[in-house]
């Protein structure tokens, strides 16, 4: 019964989404208030239906209803209860349902918080979001139905992919989707403005908090994924430039550019066309990311089973949405009012924001090219190529270096026209301090001098520049607005992130050794004593659990338990690294292969400042959230 209820709710959701998209569009175009008024209730109805379907699928997992194919494929009776909830989005069908649910939530939020906007604008925005919902709900119903029956029902199910049976991965997909899908709001606004053929900069003010919140969620989602890869894959790396990581990173870069260009457009009326294009691009890249992950077009650790029918469906949808948006853009944007004619000197905050946007867009294009290049080379018969960290790492560093250098100037530079080198003069002492500390770091670093020095200098530069702006604002009287505070928090987060990213690369110590019980290995200041491996059992796995004592100057500081888990459902063994976390650096131990005579291959790493990477990301996300609550965004804009 449950499965059929879910099925019916999904169909009703599709119908509601159709209503939500078709009627308000017609109403807005023909000026029919009765049709315009359909948008809000339809959006709420759609949310109720999708939420209902989601609850039904969750219930099926909790009750272990193996007569649903999706449940039988992705859980079994041994699966711990917490993972029965997260298994709902553990594979293709359910994660698409989550996508649809998150979109419905964002849509309902727009419906709820847009009372002060003109009804026609809201109707168009909700209609565009409804169109996207129609696509995803149809995709679910026609190619990826999570409520498909498996009759006769098996007594036992398979398993949730063991890689996903991890606390870090419970929240990773919802966060990521809240980010991805959140970009639908600025996108829908851009399309609504283009349909209208008229843009009111005050409406744009209304979309800014949405972009900030979406971007902040995406930041958290990516950080969670990176943290998970760090402790679960057993390599101690935190970013691999894997196609699927790139798929989430491209919208992040475009979103970061969009945040900045929206601010410029809202405050100065510049970059209007560019902001609209970025809003389209950020969401288009989110869709592309979803497509790349779902279709199996690129091979990656995240690939789900490839099915050309699914791939084709979502590709056609993607082409229609993106192609249609770009066509609309090309037709309508020239009439929208000029940004070139609103004058500003290159030496101005507008000029710096332009540089920010160019650099972020180039980085995004670089990631796109690198991600798709293997496919392109294959299509053109250029042979096999793999584009790896050397390409991404080098180019990304090249593009981000000027961004970090220019960053502290941004908030200090005046709009429209700056007088000569005023900001440089203000920041000169701090630049000197950054250089000085960089040089000190150069001489103190035991290894990786260039990266250590660059990391310290860049971080001090950004942090000092950011704190200087804060000091200047505080001295100028009054509290800085939430918008300013958020911006400064996020910029400070970048400084923290830079410390983590560069110092971990420069100063990491890594040893791969064979250890028999009782033997030790020295890693930096630490002595790690291997005390053997014993067998233990988890709820649904068998584990080889190692014991490694960490000593410093003969005093014990930690006892680590790296594990190698073999799940009852079979498959590759999973690594659980043993980590002693600390702000100054992690001690990281992972078990390799057994070598006989109770000796094991053990990977030992010391990772200085690795936590700062995620700490920086959390600060950036926090900055996004804080910016979004600025009172200015809540003020009722007067009628134009």
């Amino acid at each position, binding site marked *: 019964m449950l499965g059929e209820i879910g099925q019916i709710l999904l169909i009703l959701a599709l119908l509601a989404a159709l209503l939500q998209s078709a009627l308000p569009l017609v109403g807005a175009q023909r000026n029919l208030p009765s049709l315009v008024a359909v948008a809000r209730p339809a959006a709420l109805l759609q949310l109720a239906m999708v939420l209902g379907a989601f609850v039904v699928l969750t219930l099926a997992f909790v009750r272990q209803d193996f007569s649903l194919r999706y449940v039988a494929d992705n859980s079994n009776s041994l699966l711990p209860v917490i993972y029965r909830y997260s298994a709902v989005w553990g594979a293709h069908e359910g994660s698409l349902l989550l996508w649809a649910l998150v979109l419905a939530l964002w849509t309902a939020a727009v419906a709820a918080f847009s009372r002060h906007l003109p009804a026609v604008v809201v109707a168009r925005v909700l209609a565009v979001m409804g169109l996207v919902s129609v696509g995803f709900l149809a995709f679910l119903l026609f190619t990826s139905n999570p409520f498909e029956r498996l009759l006769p029902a098996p007594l036992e199910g398979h398993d949730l992919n063991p890689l996903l049976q991890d606390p870090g991965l419970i929240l990773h997909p919802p966060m990521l989707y809240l980010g991805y899908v959140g970009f639908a709001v600025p996108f829908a606004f851009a399309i609504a403005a283009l349909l209208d053929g008229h843009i009111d900069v*005050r409406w744009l003010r209304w979309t800014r908090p949405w972009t900030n919140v979406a971007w902040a969620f995406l930041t958290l989602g990516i950080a969670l994924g990176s943290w998970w890869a760090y402790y679960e894959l057993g390599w101690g790396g935190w970013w691999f430039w894997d196609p699927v990581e790139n798929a989430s990173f491209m919208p992040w870069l475009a979103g970061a550019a969009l945040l900045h260009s929206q601010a410029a457009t809202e405050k100065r009326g510049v970059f209007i066309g560019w902001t609209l294009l970025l809003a389209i691009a950020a969401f288009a890249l989110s869709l592309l990311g979803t497509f790349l992950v779902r279709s199996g077009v*690129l091979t990656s650790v995240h690939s789900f089973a490839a099915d050309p029918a699914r791939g084709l469906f979502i590709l056609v949808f993607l082409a229609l949405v993106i192609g249609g948006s770009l066509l609309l853009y*090309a037709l309508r944007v020239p009439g929208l009012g000029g940004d070139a004619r609103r004058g500003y000197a290159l030496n101005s905050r507008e000029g710096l924001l332009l540089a920010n946007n160019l650099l972020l867009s180039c980085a995004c294009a670089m990631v796109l090219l690198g991600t798709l290049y293997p496919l392109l080379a294959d299509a053109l018969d250029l042979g096999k190529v793999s584009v790896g960290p050397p390409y991404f790492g080098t180019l990304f560093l090249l593009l981000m270096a000027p961004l970090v250098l220019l960053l502290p100037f941004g908030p200090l530079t005046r709009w429209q026209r700056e007088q000569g080198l005023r900001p440089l003069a203000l920041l000169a002492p701090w630049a000197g301090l950054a250089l000085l500390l960089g040089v000190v770091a150069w001489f103190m670093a035991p290894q990786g001098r260039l990266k250590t020095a660059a990391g310290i200098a860049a971080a001090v530069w950004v942090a000092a520049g950011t704190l200087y702006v804060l000091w200047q604002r505080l001295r100028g009287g009054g509290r800085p607005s939430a918008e300013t505070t958020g911006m400064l928090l996020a910029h400070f987060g970048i400084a923290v992130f830079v410390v983590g990213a560069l110092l971990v690369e420069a100063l990491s110590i890594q040893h791969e050794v064979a250890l028999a019980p009782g033997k030790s290995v020295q890693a930096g200041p630490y002595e790690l004593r291997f005390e053997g491996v014993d067998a233990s059992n988890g709820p649904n796995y068998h584990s080889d659990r190692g014991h490694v004592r960490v000593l410093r100057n003969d005093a014990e500081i930690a006892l680590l338990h790296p594990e190698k888990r073999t799940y009852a459902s079979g498959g590759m063994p999973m690594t659980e690294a043993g980590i002693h976390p600390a702000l100054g650096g992690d001690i990281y131990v992972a078990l390799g292969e057994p070598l006989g005579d109770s000796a094991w291959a053990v990977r030992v790493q010391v990772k200085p400042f690795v936590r700062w990477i995620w700490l920086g990301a959390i600060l950036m996300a926090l900055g996004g959230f804080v910016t979004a609550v600025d009172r200015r965004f809540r003020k009722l804009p007067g009628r134009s």
Partner: protein
Amino acid sequence: MSDSNPTPPRRLPPVAVFIGALFFFGLVALMLYGVARSDRPDRDTLPSALIGKPAPSFVLPVLHDPNVKVKSTELLGAPYLLNVWGSWCPTCRDEHPILTRFAETKRVRVIGYNWKDERADALRWLEQLGNPYMLVLADEEGRTALDWGIAAAPETFLVDDHGIVRWKYSGAITQDVLDRQLIPALEKIEAAGKGKAQR
């Protein structure tokens, strides 16, 4: 604000429209191609230009005794599996247990090809993880690897008794690859060999 002054209608420059359209349709075509090939089981094994052609000739030192050089012609007469690895390559470590188990069956000579590696590191690696290879060739500078078209490790070639490359796999060998690809390819070579012997 800017919206209050109506601006005369303009058009996007044709060049921008053209580039945009080219980019968009190019991307769509590329994705279509990707979707079309996404269900091919062999999409991970990118074809090698060498399949069906004679293996490149080489003279390489033996890892364990650099004074001894092995010529490619010395390996003719029976099929061999050439496994490219390096101690710097994490994925090689992943495939190691599977390769070891297969080598223990003694079905075919398994020859290691130590690529762009430090001799000491390579020897230590084998000592730690076990040495499944009948023989390990060392290509420290990677010159010979160019002839083989080796772009990444691990990579594995199956060469038949006449020195013709019959099969190639890029990436870590799994049990599945072993059962479904390597062993069938090997059986084909063995069957051809038997056919000739009977004649």
